């Protein structure tokens, strides 16, 4: 299920995660499950595995991180796993999501942030992985086998 842009503040179950310096969140209902770092997608024999596993660090133009968790979503073309550093506290929290201000919306490209969660002093962006998938499909920065140098 794809996420929906927040029009007015609404409550949702969220999973907080980290990629490098970014603290981000994703709505629980929009993902399939969370796997470890050795996740393999359920694909046909012809498909390449590396098309299905995506390093969020690469997507966010960060140096390679020590990803420990893979967030798996279900897309029309099959599963896709996004490798993130960690799942904060390994827990799911119930919070209000605030809508993205129109001015800021114009500055986010691709529009993969659907809302914000205000947690103490931090403003955590809620990522829609389906939009990330749509925006980067075909031009997906593929996973580098372990041991290779950073870009």
């Amino acid at each position, binding site marked *: 299920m794809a996420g929906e842009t927040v029009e007015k503040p609404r409550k949702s*179950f969220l999973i907080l995660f980290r990629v490098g310096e970014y603290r981000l969140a994703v709505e*629980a209902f929009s993902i*399939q499950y969370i796997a470890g770092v050795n996740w393999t997608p359920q694909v046909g024999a012809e498909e390449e595995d590396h098309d299905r596993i995506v390093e969020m660090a690469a997507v966010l133009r960060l140096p390679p991180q020590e990803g420990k968790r893979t967030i798996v979503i279900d897309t029309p073309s099959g599963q896709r796993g996004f490798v993130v550093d960690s799942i904060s506290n390994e*827990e799911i929290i119930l919070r209000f999501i605030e809508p993205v201000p129109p001015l800021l919306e114009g500055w986010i490209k691709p529009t993969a942030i659907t809302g914000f969660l205000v947690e103490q002093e931090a403003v955590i962006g809620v990522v829609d992985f389906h939009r990330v998938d749509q925006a980067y499909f075909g031009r997906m920065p593929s996973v580098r086998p372990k041991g290779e140098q950073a870009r």
Partner: protein
Amino acid sequence: MWCRVRDNGTGFFRCLGEQGHPGNGMRKLIGNLSVKWKMALATSLILLLAVAAMLWYFPRHQRQALESGMKTKVTAVAKMISWSLVTEMDAAAVSMDVKPIEEVIASAKQDQDLIAIRVEDANGSRLTGWNDEEINRLEPSAVDKPTQVFFGKDTLGVVESIAKDGKPIGLLRMDYSLASFHEEDRAAWRFGFLFALLIFAVGSLLAALVGYRIVRPLASMTSTIKRMAGGDLSQDPLPVAGHDEIGSLALAFNELLTQMRELTSKFNIMSTTMDERTSQILSTAKQQEAGAAQQAATVSEVTATMEELAATAQQIAKNAEAVTRSADDAANAVEDGRDSLVTFVQSMAGIESGNKTINDNIVQLNRHVQQIRGIIDLINDIADRSDLLALNAALEGTKAGQAGKGFLLVAAEMRRLAENVFSSTAEIKQLIAEVTEATNATVMATESGMKTTREGADRAGEAEKAFGRIIATNEETTRASKQISLATQQQHTGTEQIVLAMGEVAEVSQKWVEGIRDTTRSVGELSGIISQVKALVAKYRISRT
């Protein structure tokens, strides 16, 4: 030849004859006449026939009567005169005196109709006469034969033999005027004619009257029915005069009018009611259809979600099983580790008692430590996987809403256990570090070495306790993951049941929607029929407004 009939809208049936057929014009003409004229015509014809017959018969009869009357009179007079003349004739023949004869015929002249008279002798020569230049020249008949009477145009000719003792001695000729005769004849004709005319007039009048009496109610009925057909049911009933067929017809017609009014008003009420009902039904059906469609949509949503849940639950169950297996492995490994530890302690004791060399013991010790490290890594891995399992269980719990609350609880529990494991393993690592440090410091079997090994033994004892905790935690973990397995299995069955139930609901819903569609269709048809009826009935006004 039959007429082709067609109602051209005026209520009359027109005879459309075939082209060129003789007599059709007449038929058309007659056909279009009103009944009373037809009756009058028929009666007139009959009367005319009667009158004609009468006219033919009556005067004729009268004339014959007159004729025979005259004939008788004339014959009688002729005979009388001829008898009277018998004696006179002899005298006349002798004395040539015609005066007595003249006296006789003078009496005959009293009849004003006599216009000529002549007496002839036996030879046919004139003895005497009056006005007899043009008198008739009829041939006399034999003596005993009747008087010859001849009806001419204007005169009646009589010739009578004057016979004495059976021998003709003379001839009497008389001419009577037929003027009065004709006069009477004509009078008779006039009378007859007038009478006939009278009969004709009265008869026709009567016929017309009767016809009118019949036709008038019919005509008014016709116009009433026409108005009825046009839609006006508000008219007065027809007057019922008498109990004859006309009266019965009027009565029957009035009944019909009443019935039609009742029927029409019933129709109106019925059609209005039905209209309301059908629109009610239609709207209800539409609502129901919408509701059913919504329900169907919701059902398929729920079914889809349930199927997703079922699939993921299966996955979790598998993972839980895997964790259980790993936990069992870990338990075994821990047992081995414990054995190693015991051996280690014994080794330490052995060192104290000095049965073995320290170096041997250290080598053994290192091996044990390696084992323990391996076990700890395994336990960490399990703890990590349990963490993940707990997280995903919680994830499913958020998706399942109410149903997943149990998941959340178990997940929280598992997370707590995992944390315990992590802290325990951290502890163990710490202990091992210290043990290693301690044993590395042990180089010689000196008193200080003894002391250090004792310290190590203490540490080992603590490590054992930690192991015990791990085992207990592990057991709990196993139990918890088994619970999750069970819960997911139950959920799976429950989900399956829900999916089945949803399928049934979907089927029922589908049938319901079909039923509603059928109803809607039938109601639509019914509505159409009602509209038609309404349109028909709308033509008829019942009240005079």
